[in-house]
């Protein structure tokens, strides 16, 4: 009896999980990554598992399909999909299940789609495997599917290869492939993590629509905003166990467990500027971290050094890549002033020119038109030789510090390399330890390779390095996009405290509007290389004047007010 025969007769829950335990290894090296997890999903219901990296949420989802990985020992009192017990199912049975009764949407569509196959072939696969559909039937069905998941011009896209599609379209194609055979249960593992807000909103609407058509949905996410948008119930996992469970609204209101409150709290949405995310306490106006003298007193609009000279300013900068009809106007006519102690948030979707602007501000890319001044002196249009001595004034913290540090160097050497030249070795050692202490890292970490650190620790190393150069302004390019919510909140709190402490100017580039809103004094909204709206953060966010800003804001998944 095939899994499908069962699906047409069963009436119970789509997914029943009771006492799922997953472990790897054997004997003394055996580690249990999922412990006694139980929940069920009914048709037309969306259950979300939230938790941070390493909480076991992905392993749980993959165990359902027998994809927990080689060497995984999966045990369960009951593991049933559509009334069919799969806890002891073999490879052949599981293969029939996948794509037919259960569809999987994974995080990264770029690696999940075969680069050498056209979209049509990929999306039509489940039809070929599970429905014995003929070539002609498949072609028709694929176009219908692509249309259904909201891919414009499906007949063109079907003939293209994955690399010709944008991230959002790729994710949609992956969803089309997952729903091709009409599975009753969809497992979506971080389906929108790599996507822009607007694209994410579209994907979430699509998932919601599928749920309304009676598909069961298991959503794995670390983003509570995403969860709020589609989930009916939420399961909170930590260290392999379920710590909290309940209706979405109840969980978002803080649930019944301290960890749930911590997760909810880490979301920067709605937390005013100057309030620490993790503690919810106002940040001191002049902290004395590691004994540094505060650069200035007070904070807030009134004391901002607006009238003083901007530390970094751009006037009419523009940059075009390519020539003739292929030309891309990455950045067009941008004016920007960053004052000491101030954070300018730059928001917009990918391809909007945010990164190019950041590179121009750092003088990594020379603008075609316009000028950039650093500390009142020319910063663009001069020779690299003249720039070199002043480079330390402008620093960068990028999204992924592991790729921006020499892979052979220890944390200590990475930071020491950024220190001013001509220090004695004693002084150097002391400053490395201070720098680590400033970012709340154990000084013992200095002998470790950055690659052996966790994502949050690595980001702190990146910040410590930027600070070691004693900059006046730091470009933060998606500084917390790769981090779990609570870890990200810690890093944002740290950045905030350091700014207050040293009067640093930040240019914060992010696609995450809630991060920008929490961190920035002023924002610039970019669309197609142009700043379409700029102004004080609260003014822009509460009464956006430009259509695009309104659209961006509408697409931010929001937590219902607690």
């Amino acid at each position, binding site marked *: 009896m095939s899994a499908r025969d069962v699906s047409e007769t069963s009436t119970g829950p789509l997914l029943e999980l009771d006492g799922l335990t997953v472990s790897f290894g054997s004997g003394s090296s055996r580690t249990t990554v999922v412990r006694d997890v139980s929940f069920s999903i009914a048709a037309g219901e969306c259950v979300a598992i939230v938790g941070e990296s390493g909480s076991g949420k992905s392993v749980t989802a993959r165990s359902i399909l027998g994809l927990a990985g080689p060497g995984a020992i999966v045990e369960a009192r009951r593991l049933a999909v559509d009334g069919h017990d799969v806890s002891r199912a073999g490879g052949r049975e599981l293969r029939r299940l996948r794509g037919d009764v259960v569809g999987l949407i994974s995080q990264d569509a770029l690696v999940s789609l075969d680069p050498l196959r056209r979209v049509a072939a990929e999306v039509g696969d489940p039809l070929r495997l599970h429905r014995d559909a003929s070539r002609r039937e498949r072609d028709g069905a694929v176009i219908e599917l692509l249309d259904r998941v909201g891919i414009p011009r499906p007949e063109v896209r079907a003939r293209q290869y994955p690399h010709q599609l944008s991230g959002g379209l790729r994710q949609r194609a992956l969803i089309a492939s997952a729903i091709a055979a009409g599975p009753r249960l969809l497992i979506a593992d971080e389906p929108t993590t790599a996507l822009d807000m607007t694209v994410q909103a579209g994907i979430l609407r699509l998932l919601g629509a599928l749920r309304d058509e009676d598909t069961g949905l298991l959503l794995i996410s670390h983003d509570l905003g995403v969860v709020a948008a589609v989930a009916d119930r939420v399961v909170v996992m930590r260290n392999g166990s379920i710590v909290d469970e309940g209706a979405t609204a109840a969980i978002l209101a803080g649930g019944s467990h301290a960890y749930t409150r911590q997760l909810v709290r880490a979301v920067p949405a709605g937390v005013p500027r100057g309030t620490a995310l993790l503690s919810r306490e106002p940040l001191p106006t002049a902290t004395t971290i590691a004994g540094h003298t505060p650069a200035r007193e007070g904070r807030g609009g009134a004391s901002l050094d607006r009238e003083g000279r901007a530390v970094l300013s751009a006037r009419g900068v523009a940059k075009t890549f390519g020539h003739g009809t292929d030309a891309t106007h990455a950045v067009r006519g941008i004016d920007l002033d960053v004052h000491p102690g101030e954070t300018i948030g730059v928001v917009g979707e990918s391809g909007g020119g945010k990164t190019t602007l950041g590179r121009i501000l*750092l003088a*990594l890319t020379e603008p075609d038109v316009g000028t950039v001044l650093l500390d009142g002196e020319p910063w663009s249009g001069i020779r690299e030789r003249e*720039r*070199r*001595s*002043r*480079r*330390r004034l*402008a*620093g*960068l913290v*990028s999204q*992924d510090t592991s*790729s*921006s*540090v*020499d*892979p*052979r*160097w*220890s944390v*200590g*050497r990475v*930071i*020491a*390399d*950024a220190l001013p030249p001509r220090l004695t*070795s*004693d002084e*150097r*050692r*002391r400053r*490395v*330890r201070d720098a680590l202490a400033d970012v709340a890292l154990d*000084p*013992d970490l*200095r*002998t*470790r*390779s950055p*690659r*052996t650190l966790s994502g949050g620790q690595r980001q702190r190393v990146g910040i410590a*390095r930027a600070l070691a*150069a004693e900059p006046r302004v730091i470009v933060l390019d998606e500084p917390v996009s790769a981090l779990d919510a609570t870890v990200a909140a810690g890093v944002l709190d740290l950045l905030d405290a350091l700014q207050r402490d040293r009067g640093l100017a930040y240019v914060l580039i992010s696609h995450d509007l809630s991060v920008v809103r929490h961190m920035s004094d002023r924002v610039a909204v970019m669309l197609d290389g142009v700043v379409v709206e700029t102004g004080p953060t609260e003014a822009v966010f509460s009464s956006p004047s430009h259509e695009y800003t309104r659209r961006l804001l509408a697409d931010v998944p929001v937590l219902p007010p607690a």
Partner: protein
Amino acid sequence: MTLDAATIDPLRPPPRPERRRRRVRVGEVVAVLFTVALVIASVAPGLLAPLDPTAVAPLEAFRPPSPSHPFGTDESGRDVYTRLVHGTGASLLIGLAATAIGLGTALVLALVAVFGGRVADGIVGRTIEVLFAFPALLSALLVILVLGPGPVAATVAVGLSTAPGYARIIRTSLLTVRASGYVESARLLGHSPARVVLRTILPNALAPLLALATLGVGQAVVWASSLSFLGLGAQPPAPEWGAMLASARVYLTTAWWLTVFPGLLIVATTLAATAIGRSLDARSRRSS
């Protein structure tokens, strides 16, 4: 501070992160032991083979392998085992020197290509492609044509003929590293181009090459032996592996041991170098 500042210097190269316990592979152990034996044979051949490699004993000619002559004797009654051991130094030196010459030339070419601007890159790139069109042995023969036969010429010839391959790999490696985030970070800190090249780009670009060079040594030994076999490398009666093979080929049907043992040794040397090279390569990949 709770820590003794003097014990851990942040400026020292990083201690390796705790490496996962690795199963020791039998092949790697054998390869290392064999390499140690080769090194001893090169430095102090007398320790392994006390006899004189050039002592002629006509009455003892063409003896098959026996307890007194484990690898037999050649047409002049010289002990094949002794000659092989004494020839190790010359053969290995040729391999090492050839690899060094090849890598050195390649490094210069690649540096010119990457840092010399677009025109230089074009010139070097096309030159490498033209050199690639010739079989390596043929270009080695061209070098010998100019320098005249002999061990030094053979070494230079093999070295130069391997250079294009290395140059191409180093060039790609340099380009990859130069475009990396950490090189950009170094630039952002205002470090001088020279410092960035020496401290960041070169170490990272050349690290993967160590493994490749080990593989290259084995290859170079084979090529040098080929040249000796053709009579263009080490000249008889010097005990060099390739030269021994060359002079033994006349007796292939009557005295098999004269060709089999030198051949086996060349194969074993290449295998050992390859095994070690692969193991190094795997290690460098694991740590990167």
